[in-house]
């Protein structure tokens, strides 16, 4: 299955290699570099690259390419999904998954990779099992270890490995028992020139932070479960209970995990919380253009829009932008050709506006197409789909935990065509 893994930074620096079978020379990555160069944007690198003797399957995450080497038939999604799991594990262990943290923790990274695959086949990918085998680094622990000489490596088989619920370890104890759930929804939408939605759907996840002692059995129910038509669950959730009763019944992993993700499709009417009035034009003569963008609230259910950001990928010929914003700050990067207007909190009384002129490369033909706008936003205390958690019940343990639910709506891939 997975033969080797190479980590390559966005700048093209190959900074980690790991082999699970015999060693494959890192020169195999030359094929990757070739494809990388051809693709221009890192996102455009084909996920599967064929070389004379190997196949390279890669993902791009946190400015790092995870390039795996394959020699025989394997479902590509299997590898891609595994690589993402590797990245998530790093994030889980080091707080972030970046070139620096990986380089700083290279030994732990190596120990993790050793445990995650055996002969190229996944062995332990469950975070809670890994944490018993290899303890995540903390300042306190590394201090204690240097003094006492004890190690970061577990000496016994994690209890989860043999249990039918590998995601939870035995003997969890907390002085205060808490369970928090974050309902996070992202709106993916395409608005056309006139501002009407060509397409809109909601991608939601429920992130959980459960710190409960012993072996609690939880049941989470919704006020309106019928909203969810396409769901996928953490392995701890019992499918059958969902199918028959529309409740989420599970024995939770310890700590942070993603309980479920769901999808509310285009058929349901999706509320669009923001409208954009825009006018971008390039003149036939004079190598210049005009830009005028106003953003206003639409269906916000009485909540405020926060962290509002408008991003525009300008055509190559735009050299600079001379604009003025009534609110927030703007920045145009002439190298990447990206205009970012960071608005912040939206004030419905006084709508923010960005206006001014663009200067183009002289002599170049005017761009065919106007650039589309990408919107970022955040609404606290609201799940835009209207999904509401009804209650959380704890079975199997006697204590009364502290429970909490938080709702957030964000813009996902939210694009306005111009």
């Amino acid at each position: 299955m997975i033969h080797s893994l190479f980590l390559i930074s966005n700048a093209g620096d190959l900074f980690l290699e790991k082999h699970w079978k015999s060693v494959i020379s890192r020169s195999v990555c030359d094929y990757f570099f070739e494809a990388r160069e051809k693709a221009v944007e890192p996102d455009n690198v084909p996920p599967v690259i064929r070389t004379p003797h190997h196949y390279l399957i890669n993902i791009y995450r946190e400015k790092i390419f995870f390039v795996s080497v394959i020699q025989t038939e394997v479902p590509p999604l299997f590898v891609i999904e595994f690589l993402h799991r590797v990245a998530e594990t790093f994030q889980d262990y080091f707080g972030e998954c970046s070139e620096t943290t990986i380089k700083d923790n290279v030994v732990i990274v190596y120990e993790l990779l050793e445990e995650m695959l055996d002969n190229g086949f996944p062995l332990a990918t469950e975070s809670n099992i890994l944490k018993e085998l290899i303890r995540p680094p903390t300042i306190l622990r590394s201090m204690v270890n240097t003094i006492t000489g004890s190690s970061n490596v577990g000496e016994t088989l994690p209890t989860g490995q043999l249990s039918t619920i590998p995601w939870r370890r035995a003997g969890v104890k907390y002085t205060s028992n808490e369970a928090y759930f974050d309902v996070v929804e992202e709106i993916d939408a395409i608005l056309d020139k006139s501002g009407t939605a060509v397409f809109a759907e909601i991608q939601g996840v429920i992130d959980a932070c459960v710190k409960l002692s012993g072996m609690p059995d939880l049941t989470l129910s919704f006020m309106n479960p019928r909203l969810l038509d396409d769901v996928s669950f953490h392995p701890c959730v019992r499918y059958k209970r969902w199918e028959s009763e529309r409740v989420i019944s599970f024995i939770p992993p310890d700590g942070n995990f993603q309980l479920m993700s769901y999808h509310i499709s285009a058929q349901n009417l999706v509320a669009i919380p923001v409208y954009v009035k825009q006018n971008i034009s390039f003149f036939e003569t004079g190598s210049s253009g005009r830009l005028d963008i106003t953003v206003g609230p639409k269906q916000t259910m009485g909540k405020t829009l926060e962290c509002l950001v408008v991003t525009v990928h300008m055509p190559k010929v735009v050299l600079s932008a001379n604009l003025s914003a009534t609110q927030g700050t703007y920045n145009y990067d002439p190298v990447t050709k990206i205009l970012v207007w960071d608005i912040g909190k939206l004030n419905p009384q006084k709508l923010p506006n960005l206006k001014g002129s663009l200067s183009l490369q002289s002599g170049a033909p005017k761009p065919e197409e106007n650039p589309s706008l990408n919107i970022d936003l955040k609404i606290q205390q609201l799940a835009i789909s209207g999904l509401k958690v009804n209650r959380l019940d704890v079975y199997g343990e006697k204590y009364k935990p502290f429970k909490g639910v938080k709702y957030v709506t964000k813009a996902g891939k939210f694009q306005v065509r111009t």
Partner: protein
Amino acid sequence: MSLSYSCNGHICENLLVMDSFVRFLKEREQEQLIKILSFLFYIFRHDDLKEMLDSNKDSLKLEAMKRIVAMIARGKNASDLFPAVVKNVACKNIEVKKLVYVYLVRYAEEQQDLALLSISTFQRGLKDPNQLIRASALRVLSSIRVTIIVPIMMLAIKEAASDMSPYVRKTAAHAIPKLHSLDPEQKDQLIEVIEKLLADKTTLVAGSVVMAFEEVCPDRIDLIHKNYRKLCNLLIDVEEWGQVVIINMLTRYARTQFLNPNVNVSITHMCEKKRKPYVMDPDHRLLLRNTKPLLQSRNAAVVMAVAQLYFHLAPKAEVGIIAKALGMFEPYLKSFYIRSTDPTQIKILKLEVLTNLANEANISTILREFQTYIKSMDKDFVAASIQAIGRCATNIGEVRDTCLNGLVQLLSNRDELVVAESVVVIKKLLQMQPEQHSDIIKHMAKLIDNIQVPMARASILWLIGEYCEHVPKIAPDVLRKMAKSFTNEEDIVKLQIINLAAKLYLTNSKQTKLLTQYVLNLAKYDQNYDIRDRARFIRQLIVPTDKSGALNKYAKKLFLALKPAPVLESPFKDRDHFQLGSLSHLLNAKAAGYQELPDWPESAPDPSVRNVEVKDSVCAERTVLTGPEGAGVLLLQTTRGSSNIASGSDESGSGSESEESREETESEEEEEDEEEEKKKRKKLDKTKAKKQAEESAERCAIHTIHQIRTIAPSGSIKMYELLHRITGEGLAVEYCFSRQPFSPDPNMVAVQIQFTNNTNSETKNLHIEDPRLQSGMRIREFAEIGLQPTGESVTVVMGIDFCDSTQAANFQLCTHTRKFFVSIQPPVGELMTPTFLTENNFKKEQGERTSAHSRFNTHSCPTDCSFSSKHLSFFSSYVVVTPPPPPSAPVYRFAGKTVSSGCLVLVTVTTKEGGGAQLTVNCEKMVIGTMLVKDILQALSQ
């Protein structure tokens, strides 16, 4: 150079060596000196690390190993440290040890001799009481790619495969493909291990062993039969990566074993008499039902695996359920609208989906969407969009004109790539109905002055040549221009100019004769072979000379034949024959190790091969075999060995909790399917291990849950009396040989004992005491039955190792008040279990056992009727053997092996014409052989 490898690592010593070396070299030239100095630096550069590794402090060793591993991670060569590192393989500090393992696995291949020094440490590790250490010793041992240790690895794998810890067994499964790739000759032995591990009942092992199966012997479908239902039922609890592998394997399995659920509609009328109405095999249904919930998995690879399973195996009507998970069909059209920020390959794929979804109803929406794409800044994507419009136009006649007009507008686009792509697509569209579009052809003829993209120029020229009759005035003029620029054109354009010239010569030779000659002359001296050849060929064909042959007459027909309109095809076509979701499917090329998805069989292979109960295995009449529904059937779960019962500890407690809740819902479903699956008659009764102190935490993990299955007494299994109701003073005891493997000890014969309490008081503390056995024989008692109420029956299973003899096992059966002497004597047939052998293997094995003392013949059986199915059932009920693979030939073969020593027993019955049969038994154990012959003859003559 040996001087450099002093491992003591004392810098001063090395410096001395260096010093003398340098002095020696002083006479040499300067350049070489520098070279050699850098080489010396290379030799001594890791001295500090070596010193740290040699120290007594674990912390220093750890620090050194960490630095070495960091070097490995960066791809730096650290192989010269091998001797210093390998010494620490037995280090007490577990982190040091693990890092040494990492190092060893990386460099062992390069330093084979030194690597051998570490082997004994791993061999010791394999015996460690800590299962994690056993497992990691096996992991490293099997990862060291040194051929000399293959026999050691083989032995280690075999032992680990019967380890008590499922985690170690899982590691054994992982080691199988490692050994196989190191030494493919071990295949046969490894297959045996795979077979053994396939029978494992724990979810932990299932995924890994199927993975090993797929790598080592994916064609041995026969190994799956007996485990098929178990794998289906375990699937939901297997970890996600294992699920993917198992689902993919079962997809292939199902294609060989079941009938195509979609075929009956079309074929029934053709051969109505033969074909029975299609009924889905319950096992086929079981697979579809058990995989469906996995569509909700968080792991995309699992969802994809289920989706492809439904795509390849489900009846058409049911394939729809995967559409939501994958978002494949029409209602989800808008989900495939493209954002400018999507990566190019995603854009192209979305475009492909949109094009395939286009129909009369939605085409106008889709075309409007496509129009926005054409303005994109990503030119590759624009080109793909134009092609997509072309495909929509060919597929949906109604919009052809709309599309064509749209494309013609694009011809005035500023971007040349857009124009070029449009030209190519328009050319193909025009070919479908050229008469109506001569104005478009004219328009395109004008474009030739401006378009520079060779493919587009070639397309226009071809179009003008092909339809020169529609543009009689323009065509010669175009040729004139082309003749001028001929030498500067690209090859594909040149070829089309020659083509155009030839066609015009044939239709309008008056105006174009000279031009054509001129073009052909230019082509004659072209640098390109193809162009020169083409020119020569065309000249011979069209210009009449005295030498030119018969073909000349047909030149017009040849060149201006009506050509079929091209079909605009998807670039993703032609990959249907690959299994969906596979690497080969993605690349549209067979990757190494790809297993073809077989076609459905014409007629279903024998479904009974998947039956697990032995008695089911001979005849396929299921009705006979199914015992009274659920009667007395128990599935006992006990923990292994009495000493470990207490240490079930946390994980088994928690495990069964979650299992239970799943069980509840599952049993509901079972009720629904009861009619479908009458054979399903399991009910689980769990004896939960009590939670106790965690004193033996080490041991607790070793315990395994074994399932001892007791079977329902049915007609085919004979009950023997152990204690009569009268002698037992109201306690009646019967026993039978359940013919199930006795899982706590595979070398024991399982004896199922049924106690019936006919007294009017409770019987307490039923247990066994004082067994008197022949030497070598062993007995495994059943757990004491604490309390047996009046009138109730209790069934337990005990194991006896008879050492392959028919000697009786004597023991005392004790209640709280009385003791009874009893004995169990097995008929010879009960000392065997069936094994599966292919016909060839059977013959091979038989060939090895032909000597006088291992072969027992009778010339004729005293049967006067022909060997009938009645006798077959005799074999099944008495001698426990496996059926002959195809029972078609008049030769019946039965293979079994003795339970205790695993010695093969082969029975061959050759029927003779006109009745009678010859019986041959091949077995190395003389006593068993003779007794078996006697018993069989006796039974046959009854």
